[in-house]
């Protein structure tokens, strides 16, 4: 069984933390993952840095630019993740844009993911149709879960289609925006999350984009199984480094 499925059996709201690989320093990745698990993260999204991350706001883009400056590459990330399963047992999801994977070779990329112990992939710019026509069999052959995103603009029919194609969970984007929006959750957002929850989909729901503190986490997970925190964590990491992880996680659960 994929460990993503196992984690949803815990009777609690799942905290997933996004971290850009190679940020703030090239060699930080493995230590940050270990520290996140120690401090209560239930799941981690490892961001493969890309020069042109379209769906991301300035915080994550800047962290990607920094990681690339630090020398991060797909190859180096896989080297850093060798043996990670001895230190970290929570589900690890790789989030990245499609072009670097295409250049690495999709089959080789998926094989490497399996080898180091990645459980699933989030590829925001790989659309459903392309995935199903060209890549689904490769992902499945390597026991990798593919997680699709839905947004407030996604029709019910398409949400159901994405739910069928996704494994592990469905990534529910909280509002029409790029990542890193601050401010509290609106009434509309809560209604939208409830609407998706009421569809009784086959996958658990994880909410992302705009979750930045205990308050937004609580609201985001009112009708869903968990939430993903990205930009807020990257900001904290930038200001406080890896030693700031315990306080960040503590505030989130407060």
């Amino acid at each position, binding site marked *: 069984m994929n460990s993503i499925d196992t984690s949803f059996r815990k009777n609690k709201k799942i905290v997933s933390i996004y971290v850009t690989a190679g940020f703030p320093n090239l060699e930080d990745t493995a230590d940050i993952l270990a520290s996140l698990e120690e401090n209560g993260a239930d799941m981690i999204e490892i961001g493969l840095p*890309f*020069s*042109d*991350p*379209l*769906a991301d*706001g*300035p915080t994550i*883009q*800047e962290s990607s*630019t920094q990681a*690339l400056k630090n020398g991060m*590459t*797909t*190859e180096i990330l896989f080297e850093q993740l060798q043996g990670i399963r001895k230190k970290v047992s929570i589900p690890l999801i790789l989030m990245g*844009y*499609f*072009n*670097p*994977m*295409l*250049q*690495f070779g999709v089959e080789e990329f998926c094989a490497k993911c399996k080898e180091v112990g990645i459980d699933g992939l989030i590829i*925001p*710019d*790989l*659309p459903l149709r*392309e995935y199903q026509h060209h890549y689904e069999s490769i992902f499945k052959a390597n026991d990798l879960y593919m997680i*699709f*995103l*839905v*947004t407030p*603009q*996604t*029709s019910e029919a*398409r949400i159901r289609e*994405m739910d069928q194609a996704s494994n592990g969970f469905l990534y529910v*984007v909280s509002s*029409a*925006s*790029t990542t890193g929006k601050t401010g509290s959750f609106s009434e509309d957002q809560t209604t939208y999350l409830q609407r998706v929850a009421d569809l009784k989909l086959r996958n658990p729901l994880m909410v992302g984009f705009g979750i930045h503190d205990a308050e937004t986490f609580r609201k985001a997970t009112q009708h869903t199984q968990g939430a993903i925190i990205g930009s807020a964590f990257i900001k904290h990491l930038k200001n406080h480094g890896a030693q700031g992880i315990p306080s960040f996680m503590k505030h989130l659960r407060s």
Partner: protein
Amino acid sequence: MQYHVDEHGYYGEFGGAFIPEMLYPNVAQLQKVYKSILQQPEFQKEFKQLLADYVGRPTPLYYANRLSEKYNTRIYLKREDLCHTGAHKVNNTIGQILLAKHLGKKRIIAETGAGQHGVATATVCALMGIACVVYMGAVDIERQAPNVARMKMLGATVIPATCGSKTLKDATNEAIRDWINHPEDTHYIIGSVVGPHPYPDLVARLQSVISEEIKKQLTDKEGRDYPDYVIACVGGGSNAAGAYYHYLDRPEVGIIAVEAAGKGIHSGESAATSALGTPGIIHGSKTLLMQTRDGQITEPYSISAGLDYPGVGPMHAHLYSSGRGEFISITDADAMEAGRDLSRLEGIIPAIETSHALAVFKQRPFKKEEVVVVNLSGRGDKDLNTYIEYFNL
């Protein structure tokens, strides 16, 4: 071999729509309706009327006597430089602003590199009374102050792209992000035959008026509706797509695409995408692009701000890989020389982008009786500073 887009938005192996889900509703809507809107008689009537009365079409097809004599062939110049705003870009923005009105959109966004597409977009937004936001790389804002002023004069808001390399590709990223944040009321007017399907085909269709006119004009002048060659410069490739469009399936017409070699293809400062690029994904389209082995998109260089895009439209990637198009790259130095040549032989100062296309005659002979059409995509006013510095005028 098919050179036009197929039903899934591909040109051979290139094209498609590699977009985040946030853009899906807008892009899917465009995919669904763009052809039928473009074919509506009312749309066509308004589009043609504006092209005639506002843009000044048809643009002349001018037989360049002295240039022809110099290169011992028959050269015609398609004078897109005489369009309102000074380049072919406005053909596309007129069409897309009408499309945006049909879709009920209240706000327009655009990206711009040198500022030509930004000016053409700001112009049509002023014409239609629609709010306009143009994203431009912070570096380009510094380099292209007059075009920034023109956009502001026309009432547009110019927002600097301060991430990444702060040039055209980052401006495009910012425009796409804006669209993600404003999915309901906003239409994104892309300036070239790039981006997710249907944009490459949409923009090519709107620019196809160029080859439609060439056909008529050549019939009058040469007694046949086609030349032996069509030459155009290619950054993203919109003027080229328009000039080739009605000749793509005519094997008797040679298609020549001219890219910017910058300081030389192997100098590390170049924008010759067909020579240096490999297949990958940029701005939602699978195409040839300049990138590192790790798949990070690199920053191209050309003396011409309109040619330094790290990708190329998927139609052109397919013309290259299928062998239908002949791709030639021209250095800064050869382009500048060709620009001065045209100025002195024909009294026309071309945009530096266009100068690249004109430099082909020095590199490649044509037969005396062959008819060669060069798409003169833009005028050189915007490049005067570069010409002044380069030639110490």
